[in-house]
């Protein structure tokens, strides 16, 4: 598709030209960079390495009211959420964009999840290639790239005077159509700059993991004593799962009183002991190492076998944020080593 160029100075005009949409972009709130609905375009920040918070919540909010109910003299009244607003996510990283590609089959294969789907359909993703991948990034190991376009509608890459704009899909083209006057056609020189930038950033990624046949190795490693040692360090929090762009487990709850309340769904995490707790009091995943093992197997064995994708996009957030240095790369490398594969 088209390749265009946006001058640095025109970025704000470009964002304004996206029209009457809900704009979600990185802004600083309470001292932290978050992907949030943007009220003030001046607040948008694009110069950070990577973002702690994932953009998963745009399609799959942490808390979602499915419907609310109220008992009235005329019976119970039920109120459902309306359609998703037209949304543009601006500045999303290629790994995060790619995460939706891996999530799509989950929410559509056996059953079309209306909540995810309505947002997915209403959202355009304008990505921003990573110029400075971090010391825990490993997207190439999971077939990604700091400049990958999978899942994106438009990709911006930093070049000398501004941004190289690669239109990936028709939806992308449509979304930026209002900004036509701000964009110029990319020249060969621009495209070369973009290629150089991609190459440079790819070269900065130092960490890697060999995932060859990992979906077959892991089940064999199920009984290894090493899980106990690695897993017992885990403190059972939800940092890795909640910050993971591809983790997608949820819980459904009714909240309120018998007179009024709502049904909602919230994120849940397989690292919590309650996750598998049975009503009887029995918990089939007895301890933290079994839970950690499950997460590894789910991402690198069960999910790929069932849905065709590794459930990891190599963003490395789980590695960076883990309070006790549980390191997915180290764990998988150890598994391969111990299994002599």
């Amino acid at each position, binding site marked *: 598709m088209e390749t265009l160029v946006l001058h640095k100075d025109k970025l704000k005009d470009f964002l304004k030209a996206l029209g009457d949409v809900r704009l979600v972009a990185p802004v600083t709130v309470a001292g932290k960079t978050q992907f949030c609905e943007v009220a003030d375009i001046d607040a948008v920040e694009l110069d950070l390495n990577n973002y702690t918070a994932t953009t998963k919540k745009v399609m799959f909010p942490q808390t979602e009211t499915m419907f609310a109910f109220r008992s009235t003299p005329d019976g119970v009244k039920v109120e459902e959420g309306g359609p998703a607003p037209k949304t543009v996510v601006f500045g999303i990283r290629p790994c995060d964009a790619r995460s939706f590609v891996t999530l799509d089959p989950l929410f559509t294969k056996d059953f079309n999840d209306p909540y995810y789907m309505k947002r997915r359909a209403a959202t355009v993703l304008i990505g921003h290639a990573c110029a400075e991948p971090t010391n825990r990034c490993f997207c190439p190991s999971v077939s990604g790239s700091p400049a990958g376009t999978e899942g994106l509608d438009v990709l911006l890459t930093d070049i000398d005077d501004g941004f190289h704009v690669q239109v990936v899909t028709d939806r992308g083209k449509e979304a930026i159509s209002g900004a036509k006057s701000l964009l110029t056609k990319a020249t060969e020189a621009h495209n070369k700059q973009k290629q150089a930038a991609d190459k440079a950033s790819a070269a900065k990624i130092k960490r890697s993991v060999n995932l060859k046949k990992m979906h077959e190795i892991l089940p064999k490693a199920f009984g290894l004593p090493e899980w106990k040692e690695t897993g017992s360090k885990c403190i059972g929090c939800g940092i890795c799962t909640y910050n993971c762009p591809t983790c997608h487990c949820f819980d459904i709850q009714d909240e309120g009183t*018998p*007179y009024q309340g709502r049904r909602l769904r919230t994120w849940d995490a397989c690292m919590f002991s309650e996750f598998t707790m049975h009503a009887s009091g029995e918990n089939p995943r007895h301890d933290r190492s079994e839970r950690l093992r499950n997460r590894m197997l789910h991402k690198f064995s069960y999910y790929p076998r069932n849905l065709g994708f590794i459930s990891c996009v190599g963003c490395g957030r789980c590695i960076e944020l883990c309070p006790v240095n549980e390191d997915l790369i180290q764990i998988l490398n150890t598994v391969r080593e111990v299994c002599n594969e």
Partner: protein
Amino acid sequence: MASKRIGVYICHCGVNIAQNVRIDDLRAFAAGLPGVRVAQNYMYMCSEPGQEMIRKDIAENRLDRIVVVACSPRMHEPTFRNAMKSAGLNPYCLEMANIREQCAWVHKDADVATAKAKSLLAAAVTKVSLLEPLEEREVPVTKTAMVIGGGIAGIQAALDIADSGFKTYLVEKDASIGGHMMQLDKTFPTLDCSACILTPKMADIKNHPNIELLAYSEVTDVKGFVGNFKVTVKRKPRYIDENICNACGSCAKYCAIAIKDSFNAGLSKLQALHIPFPQAIPAAYVIDPLACRYTREGTCRQCEQVCKDLNAINLDMQEHSIELDVGTMIMATGFEPFDANRKPELGYGRYENVITGMEFERIVSASGPNQGQLLINGKKPKEVVFIQCVGSRDKTVGNEYCSRVCCMYTAKHAHLVREKLPDAKITIFYIDVRAFGKGYEEFYDRVKGEEVYYRRGNVSEVYRKGDKLICRGEDTLLGQALEVPADLVVLAVGLEPSPGARELGQLLKLSKSPDGFFLEGHPKLRPVETGSDGVFLAGCCQGPKDIPDTVAQAGAAAAKAIIPLAQGMVKTETMVARVRAEACRACGYCVDACPYDAIALGEVRLGRATKTAAVVNEVLCKSCGACSAVCLSGAIQQSGFTDDQLLAVIGAIGKEY
């Protein structure tokens, strides 16, 4: 959880509720609430037909939860529980919404009161659906009573209980029973000799087969609950075995150490080895260890030598404690006269001819230091002034209350002065004269007729001028300043709670009213009961009283204390704390927080394993819920007030309906 079948009953309370709350609105609202099968209203739900309505619906509609929307649960909760019980329903599946005291009576606007009633009703329905049936338990009663305090109140109460056939312990802190009444000379208005009417009762105590007198002893700890108290009594060493001593008095002749005679209000001396007063019960001598040369310095032991044959004296006697099981207890700890030093402007302590009413009693008593002669510094006073309300009705000393006896004892004193000194000039300063008892007004009238000058007004100062005291005040009837000279000033000191009773009250978990005296269960309807089941009040520990009122109240307290003993069983608390051992982390917070030592850590079985967890002694638990709030994991929960139930109520009560 099977859905509940709730019945809602709205009471009109005549017009009390109905005039401010729209009953029909409320009933329609109730009928629409989740789980409500029946919603009815009636003129008086507490009446027999009202209760019958509930019983009938329980039977016909298989109701399993009842909400009564009426008055305070403090009023009629037992009524409706009984109604439910008789209909075969667990009485604890009841919740009351208090729309009378909290709605109809305090909010005039019917819209507002009805709206509020709806949220109270909705909260009650929410809570009732979460209530669980609870089991009532009974435990056997130790058929023994204890009376603390050996004044006239304690003596009377002990005799009454013992006469009904129950063993009674009478605990007295001093070496003899008798209390303040024993110190009085005459009693108003009949002028009986106080000792003459008291000593026969004291002898009865000594001789009663059902009474065990523990004199010179103090209660130091109380554990348990009604029917099953465990009381620790400290027996102070008297150094003379009261069971052997025949009160011959030979030993006392050899004791050279003099101490103040507290029985004579410190106006005379006696020996460190002494009998408190001649008619003392137990009729035995006692040694004051703070004064005795042997106990202080380790030498002497002369008395022991004197009593060699009888061998009643044992100077090595040690303090020891005994533990007694009792079913009920009566507090009869009496009063302490107001300390006149706290009113320095009246000259007490500074001038020796300013004395208190109690000192006056001893001076005029035939058994007193002067053998009944009214002499001050060896001379007969010519002018005597009485000042009433010293330490009573006086906010400056923190006593707002009337001590109830001072008006009458002052009248009695004036009469005694007149009897002994026909020519003396007698003036009484008063604020009001309260002569409310039988024969009191007549007595007051009589005293007034004996040339006793009643001057209405406070004395602001007593000072010395030459050899006279001058009482300066104001006659508020005449509106003029007044200075009355006196040779003797008698301060009619009021009554204050006995300081030693304070700790005891805490042991027994008794509340105090603002005046510092113990608080009765209800000012009208439970005048001798307390907030602690099985503990009753007699005499001045509940408030100032004269002797007839004290004796009457002691009898009432005895009757109340006998009830559980006669019944033989008492009900224990039902809404007790329960522990879910799985969640308990055995930190022991609840153990420390429980005011009743009802919780301990113990090993409990959980499936096949055992685990250390909190264990509640349901008999000791008093259902305060303190444990439930300090438990971090929510493992311990007060039945009927669980986190789950209270959170649901919070949710329901905060909403608009």
